[in-house]
């Protein structure tokens, strides 16, 4: 049942949006540059110059400007970034059939079929990207998606790193748990409270214990902490939903506060849908609450658009289920009608 050893490459463009803007405007060379919607008030991405000042993507714009008053803030030009992304995906297609884009600037490639050393393949892909787009990319090379993604971060920018089979054990031993996909700040804190800092520590925890603390995710942690990940590179992975969520520094204790926090989330969700997913039909909307005891509830109902009124009702419904428990995370999203389940000639649905 076990497949042969796979060769997976994760390619991650270096501050993609900012890099494109800088290529388009050579006069910005050497300046701290960020791309971000002023309206939304956060940086979408920023270049390494800006990072020296402590700017980070997803940082509120006002904070970024406090840290770096001469920051060049540019509006987001998705059209342009999409075009570049297309050119890069064409390069990927020359090397592999199994390409799974994660976003405009990131993708997994399964190059198990190539005889050449995957590290050489990664280097060649990065060269081709540089020649074609004058942009730099970083790459991670490993036997699975999880490790490849971690590795691509190791020599960033414009570098690559391979985790070879015989290095996995040693690599995982010292890897901080924050590097595990899905471990956010709060989960990390919760894991730390168990006296666990590294994946090596995590490996010492029995699966049953992890399941008790983290449910299904605990079982994933058991495998991930050992560098095991069986997920395939899936070129047809179809986006099933779009959502937006936020973890709060201070717990939300009333439903009024919850509604207040929900409003910007819905606005951003509507914007995301409008900008990136307008081609998809919406089937239902949902609101997710994570309580301080880490339990999660999701309220949902059918809707055909990002319907703020209905989403607000869903928040109240979910809030009700918490029975007054404080909330640490609020999420809102919509799920899509699966592709190929078209309006015409097809099966009708009741919900």
């Amino acid at each position, binding site marked *: 049942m076990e497949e042969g050893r796979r060769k997976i490459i994760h390619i991650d463009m270096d501050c993609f949006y900012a890099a494109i803007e800088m290529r388009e405007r050579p006069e910005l060379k050497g300046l701290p540059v960020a791309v971000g919607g002023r309206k939304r008030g956060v940086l979408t991405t920023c270049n390494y110059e800006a990072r020296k000042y402590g700017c980070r993507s997803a940082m509120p714009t006002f904070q970024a400007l406090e840290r770096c008053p001469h920051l060049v803030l540019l509006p987001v030009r998705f059209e342009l970034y999409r075009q570049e992304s297309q050119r890069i995906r064409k390069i990927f297609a020359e090397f592999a059939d199994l390409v799974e884009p994660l976003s405009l600037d990131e993708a997994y490639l399964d190059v198990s079929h190539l005889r050449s050393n995957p590290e050489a393949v990664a280097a060649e892909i990065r060269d081709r990207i540089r020649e074609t787009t004058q942009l730099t990319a970083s790459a991670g090379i490993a036997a699975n998606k999880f490790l490849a993604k971690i590795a691509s971060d190791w020599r960033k920018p414009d570098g690559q790193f391979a985790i070879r089979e015989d290095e996995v054990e040693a690599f995982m031993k010292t890897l901080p748990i924050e590097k595990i996909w899905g471990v956010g700040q709060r989960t990390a804190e919760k894991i730390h409270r168990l006296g666990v800092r590294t994946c090596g520590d995590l490996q010492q925890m029995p*699966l049953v214990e992890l399941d008790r603390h983290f449910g299904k995710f605990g079982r994933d942690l058991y495998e991930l902490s050992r560098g095991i990940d069986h997920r395939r590179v899936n070129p047809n992975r179809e986006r099933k939903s779009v959502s937006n969520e936020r973890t709060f520094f201070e717990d939300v204790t009333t439903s009024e506060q919850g509604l207040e926090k929900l409003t910007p989330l819905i606005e951003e969700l509507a914007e995301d849908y409008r900008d990136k997913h307008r081609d998809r039909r919406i089937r239902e909307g949902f609101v997710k609450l994570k309580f301080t005891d880490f339990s999660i509830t999701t309220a949902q109902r059918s809707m055909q658009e990002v319907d703020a009124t209905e989403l607000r009702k869903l928040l109240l419904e979910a809030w009700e289920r918490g029975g007054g428990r404080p909330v640490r995370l609020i999420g809102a999203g919509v799920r899509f009608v699966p592709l190929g389940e078209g*309006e015409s000639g097809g099966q009708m649905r009741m*919900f």
Partner: protein
Amino acid sequence: MKFQIDRETFLEGLQQVQHVVSTRTTLPILSNVLIEADGDELKLTTTDLDVGVSGRIKADIESGGASTLPARRLVNIIRELPSSDVAVEIDGDNVASIRSGPSFFKILGLDQEEFPPFPDFDEAKEFALDQKTLRDSLRKTSYAISTDETRYVLNGIFCSLKDGMMTLVATDGRRLAMVEHEVEFPAGNETDVIIPTKAVNELQRLLGEVGEVRVRITDSQIAFELNQNVLVSKLIEGNYPNFRQVIPGEANDRVTIEREVLLNSVHRVSLLTSEKSNSVKLMFEDDQLHITANSPEIGEAKESLHVQYKGKKMSIAFNPDFLMAPLRNLDQDEVFLDLIDEMSPGVLKVDEPFLYVLMPMRVSQ
């Protein structure tokens, strides 16, 4: 621990619990069956942390104790043993010696301390149901459970215990099956839960023709006690869709059809559906039902049968698999199909509290 046991008894007991065993090899203990010997019984337990099953079987126990052994491997060994007398001895290091006739097997187990305990049902609401009723009800609904993982609330059977009724519902958004039965329980016990598919499948395996099943429900777990078995499962969290609103009220026309005749006809006609045009068309007129299917690149099929229908001429298209599923799982000779028009859901009924709502397919023509 040391016991003698009949091969078939042991095998049956193991087979009843082995389906739950995790196929993931990351945690060996979840691949193991917990064996507890006490009095004149062996208790066998397996779990994958979502669903757990235990069963009791008779054995001749020389000395009691508890240990765990790899479930699938044990089943394979017991099945092949040459003699019906089996002697098992498990030492303090969880090494099992199995003797039967000329055969000897030694298998390495794991300490029972590692085996995850079953959840607590102290504060549970309790119900008593008739096994056969529950078994029939699950058979008549479970095929409609959604397998779409993105709609996890539909990945199970909705079970409502309210107003002296037990209502079971399964749907995937395209069809919906529902069964209702009167059940006695205290008013304070009213509850709605969603039982995950895996638990439904296991339960169907365990339920028999006679006797009761005791059901205990907490906020997050459900347990079924029946015969010599206990099944526990996590419940699916979330809100089941408001299914009542999709059940049509008054129908315009009712068709009475022989169940097996309809099933066989739809089955034959469906041989000429294809992935692209996966629908059969039902056309009703004057006590006649014409069932047709055609795929431009393959050909076409048509069958006519006698039905009771006095309404106006009308036609409606359905996915043949969705139409056949309830017909296969019902026992009645006659079924009733209530129709409104070609774009509205059809409702299949029988002369007991069952209904099946099926959304039509849009076909160009």
